């Protein structure tokens, strides 16, 4: 039950201070810069600015931190679209259609669509947060090892849509990603796996290092390959009015936007999955129900819509378990939890009673941050697209240097940069041998979730094998997975027969 008087108090505490609104704009701008540079993330931006909030009030401190979160989540689309290098893990799926659209001369359109969908996704997540946070938190708390395992299997089954034409290579890619995810200490019993006696490997491989290696290094190597070839000059279309969508097109994308927002919010509520998973799930969902799935990956708006709407909807979703249960939904909210503790805000069921005004102040800050993100990125489009005018032989080495810093900053270790180098080799070989990279990323993200929950579930089942029958949510996901796999295989056979 929403106490509207407390809500109004919270809203007023933010909007009455022009300096606070300026702080939110500054936070969003900084978040966008961090999100745009491959290797730097909103988590890093929040970590750096956390000490700055010591002297601020509760509302001011949290407003700055959520502004960084919103900006960082959205900023990743800039590098994804313009350079084919995901700025953040959440923006991996934006590369699939964002970059081909930019490469065909429609960079403004791609950015405009991404920016608008980011805004819509953030606002959708915020609406869910505002109205149904406690209800969704109750559902989230029902998720145990069986449910997480079932969701991981369901998500991995969708990899069929990401495998491209060669399903064998797609599955090799996903299993390789899952295998790389086993490096380090095993869940539950902390057995060392593939550490080669190096203590640095006990912590496992980092997703950021893998993404920089697979995408950023591969791009610079593609530029190196093409040095002696005549360079194709891409003339960018003159900047369109608005966001690159006509109203008719926007209406035709409504279902894609809404479904992606729902997926993003749903994934955000479940700790450990994050924006990368949300983006890929939404992308595969939209692709599977599309009338023209063969066009995905060629630069169509649907792909950008799915990715950006879902990864920004994760923001609201991830805040739900954070505020109502004290459980962070992703990496950035884990640091936001630190921010809440720092400002003496105790997350949990009583947060609305003890710190109601601050909570509604946070909601207001998220809305203003979403608006700030829209404005800054919309007017910044002209500057962003100018990046494409910088010769690649000058731009890419600088980007790689900054990406290396991003990898180094994770744990201040040279080892993480060597991981980037290793995955640069892996990514280059995958490109040459025709292996798709997105399934590897999805396998890496979901593999550890799948294994740890599978092992926990197997411990429960060792005591009572019939316990799975008491987990209806898990059973539903397993049934849906089997159905999806069956339909996909039948469709593929049908398509092959038609082609023959």
């Amino acid at each position, binding site marked *: 039950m929403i106490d509207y008087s407390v809500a109004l108090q919270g809203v007023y505490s933010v909007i009455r201070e022009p300096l606070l609104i300026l702080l939110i704009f500054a936070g969003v701008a900084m978040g966008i810069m961090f999100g745009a540079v491959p290797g730097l993330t909103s988590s890093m931006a929040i970590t750096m600015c956390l000490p700055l909030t010591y002297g601020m009030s509760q509302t001011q401190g949290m407003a700055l931190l959520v502004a960084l979160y919103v900006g960082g989540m959205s900023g990743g689309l800039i590098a994804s679209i313009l350079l084919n290098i995901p700025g953040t893990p959440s923006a991996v799926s934006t590369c699939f259609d964002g970059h081909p659209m930019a490469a065909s001369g429609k960079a403004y359109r791609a950015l405009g669509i991404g920016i608008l969908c980011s805004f819509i996704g953030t606002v959708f997540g915020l609406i869910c947060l505002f109205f149904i946070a406690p209800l969704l938190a109750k559902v989230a708390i029902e998720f145990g090892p069986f449910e997480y395992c079932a969701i991981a299997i369901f998500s991995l089954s969708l990899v069929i849509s990401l495998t491209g034409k060669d399903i064998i290579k797609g599955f090799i890619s996903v299993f390789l990603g899952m*295998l790389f995810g086993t490096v380090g200490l095993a869940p539950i019993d902390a057995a060392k796996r593939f550490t080669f006696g190096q203590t640095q490997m006990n912590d496992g491989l980092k997703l950021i290092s893998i993404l920089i290696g697979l995408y950023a290094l591969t791009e610079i190597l593609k530029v*190196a390959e093409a040095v002696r070839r005549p360079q194709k000059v891409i003339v960018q279309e003159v900047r369109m009015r608005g966001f690159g969508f006509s109203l008719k097109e926007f209406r035709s994308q409504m279902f894609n936007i809404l479904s992606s927002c729902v997926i993003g919010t749903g994934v955000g509520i479940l700790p450990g999955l994050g924006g990368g998973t949300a983006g890929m799930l939404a992308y595969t969902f939209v692709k599977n129900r599309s009338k023209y799935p063969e066009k995905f990956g060629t630069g169509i708006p649907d792909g950008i819509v799915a990715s950006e709407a879902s990864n920004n909807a994760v923001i609201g979703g991830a805040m739900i378990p954070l505020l109502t249960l004290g459980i962070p939904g992703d990496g950035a909210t884990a640091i936001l939890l630190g921010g809440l503790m720092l400002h003496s805000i105790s997350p949990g069921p009583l947060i609305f009673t003890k710190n109601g005004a601050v909570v509604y102040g946070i909601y207001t800050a998220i809305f203003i941050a979403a608006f700030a993100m829209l404005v800054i990125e919309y007017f910044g489009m002209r500057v962003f697209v100018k990046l494409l005018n910088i010769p690649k032989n000058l731009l890419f*080495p600088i980007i790689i*240097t900054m990406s*290396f810093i991003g990898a180094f*900053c994770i744990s201040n270790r*040279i080892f993480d940069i060597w991981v980037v*180098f290793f995955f640069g080799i892996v990514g280059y070989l995958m490109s040459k041998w025709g292996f798709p990279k997105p399934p590897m990323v999805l396998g890496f993200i979901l593999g550890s979730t799948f294994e740890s929950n599978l092992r926990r579930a197997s*411990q429960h089942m*060792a005591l009572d094998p019939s316990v799975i029958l008491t987990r209806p949510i898990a059973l539903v996901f397993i049934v849906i997975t089997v159905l999806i796999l069956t339909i996909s295989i039948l469709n593929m056979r049908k398509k092959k027969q038609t082609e023959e």
Partner: protein
Amino acid sequence: MNKKNLLSGGALLLFCFFSWVQSLKIKVAQGAGVSGISSRAMPQALIIAIAALSVLLIAREVIAAPAESRRIPSFSVEKALGACVTFFKDNYEVLISFGLLALFIILLKSLGFIAAATVFLMSEMFILTPIGKGKYVKMALLSIFCAFFIYFLFVRLLNVYLPAGLAGNLFIG
């Protein structure tokens, strides 16, 4: 026959063999509370799956190939050396880029960020520029400026730790 698929299948099988040997070193927990799936189970299941798919990949190419192309090609040292030279001639920019990336990481620890970044930026820009089309002095100045600017931005403004080296300590402190 797609030679890339044969090569990738073979490389993956070698990788699986190596990974399998490493997986045997994983200690399996004993004692109370242990049940079902061990720490070794998942990695080994994945290795078997990758190996099976790699065999399928190779088999697919061999089965689909015309009968006359299925025979094992003759090997000679001259042919192999010739192939290596051709490979290097066609891809030297890529190979040198790999080398420069590795050099950057090695120099980062020993010389510090500014020196390592300057060397890397200058060399990589040179490699990525078609011969005769680059303004090499401008590239050198840009490399030095970027190295210092990035170091200043991250270390002084954002309080991020980067290995300083001599240049960092002398010029920025």
